């Protein structure tokens, strides 16, 4: 227990749920495995989506690529959040005070915010036909997206080494 952590995180780690996660042989490793599998799905979907916004697969209508890719990304993100919560609760007071975990949290917020902004941009990809140029702000947002999510993945693995 890291006494420097906020009281509610110490309570969360000490809770019956936290205890159950640590005591079980399979819950923690399963969450860990599923977290990585979900990350693979998420990274694949996000990369396809962002590459389309950057002008790849120019023979397709952007919406035909982006819509299914986004559904997979959202589903994978929910799985990431769920399994991530299990991993977090087991060591909440320690992990919350880890600077890389804190950076990861901010990066995730930035990534989600970026995605929400893209979804609301007036120059919507919905109206774009195959081969038409992607508006520069969508291209910029796609580059930001790839950079942020790669940094999130790197930060996630680095938590264990700081």
């Amino acid at each position: 227990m890291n006494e420097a952590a906020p009281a509610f995180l110490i309570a969360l780690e000490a809770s019956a749920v936290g205890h159950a996660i640590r005591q079980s042989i399979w819950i923690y490793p399963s969450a860990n495995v599923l977290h990585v599998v979900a990350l693979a799905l998420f990274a694949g979907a996000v990369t396809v989506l962002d590459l389309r916004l950057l002008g790849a697969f120019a023979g397709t209508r952007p919406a035909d690529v982006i819509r299914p890719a986004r559904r997979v990304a959202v589903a994978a993100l929910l799985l990431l959040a769920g399994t991530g919560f299990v991993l977090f609760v087991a060591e909440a007071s320690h992990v919350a005070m880890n600077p890389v975990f804190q950076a990861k949290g901010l990066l995730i917020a930035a990534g989600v915010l970026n995605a929400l902004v893209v979804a609301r941009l007036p120059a919507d990809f919905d109206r774009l036909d195959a081969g038409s140029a992607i508006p520069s702000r969508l291209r910029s947002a796609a580059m930001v997206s790839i950079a942020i999510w790669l940094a999130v993945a790197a930060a996630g693995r680095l938590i264990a080494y700081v």
Partner: protein
Amino acid sequence: MRAKLIAAAVVLSAVAAAPSIAHHGWGSYDASKPVTVAGKILTSKYENPHTTLTVQTAEKVWTVTLAPVSRMQTRGAIAEMVGVGKEISAYGYPSTVEKDEIRAERITVEGKTVEMR
């Protein structure tokens, strides 16, 4: 372009935010200064992500971090082997962050040695 600059700044600050508080992995343990902690087990948490003991030696109380539960069991280091009151000898590396903590490379209890890595 400004968006790209912001992205680069975010990534760089994430990388720069690195050193300080620790836990887990072998990265924050100094393998160049191996120590052997030998003594009686005071407390034993046989749980994930790592089994953790406190061990009373002649000088002080050490925290000894072992392997995840499934690996402990696979290798025959069941909960009873590292139970409270057992005499243990743990060879490992001191944490560069936590005071008086080692991550054990191997442990020996009652003549039985188990590798933790």
